[in-house]
């Protein structure tokens, strides 16, 4: 949907994505699977929010080949990623690091879940307390009873707006 919506929204022309080409693939299926997994988490720097595994851009192709070269040279997945980050900065990672700068990003959903859960817990707690503490409302005083009578026999009030 990305290309369609991006095209719809911003009128940007993106070509059809063919991405990984047959000749790019590594002979070793295990190594190729690792290359695909890493590529899925690396951003194509000239695209909008596309991974290099999905992108047709020539830069993405260069990066895919680079990933495969490093893997062939014996790098671990982490080493390949670190290499790309050292070269292109954190912008290249589609999954931001768990750094202090990204604390809000990673922490907010969790904090909201805890806070929301706590609020719901309080809601039940308060209600249970109310339920046990106030078994029945106090009877109306004579004055209140008269007011109630008056209200019940009055015409419905006009809509209040202010």
């Amino acid at each position, binding site marked *: *949907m*990305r*290309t*369609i*919506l*991006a*095209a*719809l*929204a*911003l*009128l*940007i*022309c993106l*070509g*059809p*994505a*063919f*991405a*990984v*080409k*047959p*000749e790019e*693939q590594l002979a070793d299926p295990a190594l190729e699977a690792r290359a695909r997994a890493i590529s*899925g*988490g690396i*951003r194509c720097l000239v695209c*909008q*929010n*596309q*991974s290099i595994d*999905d992108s047709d851009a020539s830069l993405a192709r260069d990066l895919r080949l680079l990933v495969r070269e490093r893997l062939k040279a014996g790098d671990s997945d982490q080493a390949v990623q670190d290499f790309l980050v050292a070269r292109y*900065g*954190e*912008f*290249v*990672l*589609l*999954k*931001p690091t768990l750094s202090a*700068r990204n604390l*809000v*990003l*990673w922490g*907010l*959903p969790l904090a*909201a*879940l805890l806070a929301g*859960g706590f609020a*719901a817990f309080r*809601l*039940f707690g308060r*209600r*249970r307390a*109310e*339920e046990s503490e106030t078994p029945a409302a106090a009877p109306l005083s004579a004055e209140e009873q008269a007011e109630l009578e008056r209200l019940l026999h009055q015409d419905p009030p*006009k*809509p*209040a*707006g*202010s």
Partner: protein
Amino acid sequence: MIVEIGHFALILAFAVAVFQACVPVWGALRHDGVLVRLAPRAALLQFALVALAFASLTQAYLTSDFSVANVFQNSHTLKPFIYKWSGVWGNHEGSMLLWVLILALFGAAVALFSRRLPDDMLGVTLAVQSMIAAAFMAFLIFTSNPFLRLANPPFEGRDLNPVLQDPGLAVHPPLLYLGYVGFSIVFSFAAAALILGRVDAAFARMVRPWTLVAWIALTLGIAMGSYWAYYELGWGGFWFWDPVENASLMPWLTGTALLHSAIVMEKREALKIWTILLAVITFSLSLLGTFLVRSGVLTSVHAFAVDPERGLFILFILIVFIGGSFTLFALRANAMRAGSLFSPVSREGALVFNNLFLSVAALAVFVGTLYPLLLEALTGAKISVGAPFFDLTAVPLMIPLFLAIPVGQKLAWKRGDLAGAMSRLWWVLALAVVGAAVVSFAVSGGPVMALAGIGLGFFLIFGAFDDLLDRASRGGWGRFMPRLLAIPRANVAMVLAHAGAGLMVLGISATAFEKEKIISVKAGETFQLAHHSLTLNGLTTQTGPNYNALVARFTLRDGAGAPIAELNPAKRVYVGRQMPTSEVARYREGFSEVYLAIGETSGGERVDLRAYYKPYVLLIWLGPVLMAFGGLLSLSDRRLRVGAPRRARVAVQGSPAE
């Protein structure tokens, strides 16, 4: 001339909208019924004028009137009729006109179908709706006017972006907008309820059909967009966690939460403050989505800074409406009384659980979408937040939510019996585990998470239908059929919607078992794909109405070698923009698909191919379609449309007690 009539109609509509935004509120404040009752008429007039404007732009597109700048930039004489027509909203100006048309449509629909409402409620609701409409009409007229003429009309247009030249364009944006913008009326109801101080069960009943309509359209719109991306983009993905997609997912998540919390408000007078807040938040997220998509801020913060006119205008609208509604909310929230009591283990408790997880998921999507923009604007640092982030935040939040659905369905209002609910669910759970085990056996193992997902999908589906079984068999099996048929539509709707969620989970989990081949094939070559084989017969060229295509002709054979289908994936180059697109070829087998897309060709007989076998992939979209169907069924439940649900419910509940 017709274009000028449209232009003039839009300006008149703006004037009517301003009138409709002010006069009924003034009337309500002064208790002047005459002024208040002008609102429905103004709403109908406003809709008629916007429809006229829209029709005249459509006419300009259909006749390829290139003296209109908008038509020149987005159309071409060779374009097939359907794309000339749907091209009206395939661009910024036209899609904003559609936005305004749908705003006016909902206003007019409320004016027509909600005559039962108190006059002041109807008047103020339509006034708020018209404030939104007036703001967006001003945006159209002053920054994005689709009716501007060119002094020297060119002979040929620049054509529509080829990616958009697909029947999907005729369906996806209107549905999506119907959903997204449909929540405006829920927002207007909420604002009116706050202004008039009438936040009660009647409010929940009033907005329910409108929330449902918007939710159904948004569900279908998102599913349609996902399906379109699946077949259009050539690698068979269905969701990319792109900011533009997230913009539509956020209101869907909170809208779904709203649909559930409004039930609690309607039946039990509880969660009132929260429900109103959700109504406000949902449309605020729609507005935010519009800002993200329309301002150019997504391409980069800098692109926004270079040409900020449109962006700033929408940002201003955003601030006024979101700020205004939250201020109103803050002023009135104290006046709302806490509702009735319920235990944590109850239907209400389950719905609170639902709301918690849906809202936090919406927040996760919100943070993931906006954080990079904010960080760049504030510190200049650039980070990317993509699929891996959402897979770790929003997706896991859905798991407890889905697990809780079958349990929640079984709990009674006010105080439920967890042990009783679970006693039936053990069977459902056992069936789900058996289902996952059967799948695991059939595919000879697989990722544990995918199998767990399949178990979860089955749990949802069996759990949903067990609810019907349970209700129908409660008084012995003898009266099973009459009882089954007596189950209220709204309950059947719930069962279908939840089963739809289960189908979707199944489809998404099954993607783990897809087979992919990226190979270079020569004419005459045959290769295996899952239990099929494919042969490339050759490459041919083809000429379409406004494109030239290179077509690869494949024969698909089953395991025994018998041909079952001819598949012709192609590459097209459109004449207008000289832009290539890829046309995939698919073969459907039950709910599974064989999916082919071609890339570069060489020597006239060799082609790069991406071939997939995607098991049960269609369930990903059938699930949401079933959800939406559930919504429609619920909408057709008379008890919820007419104003007296209490009596009807007593009558229905009376029968099992016989």
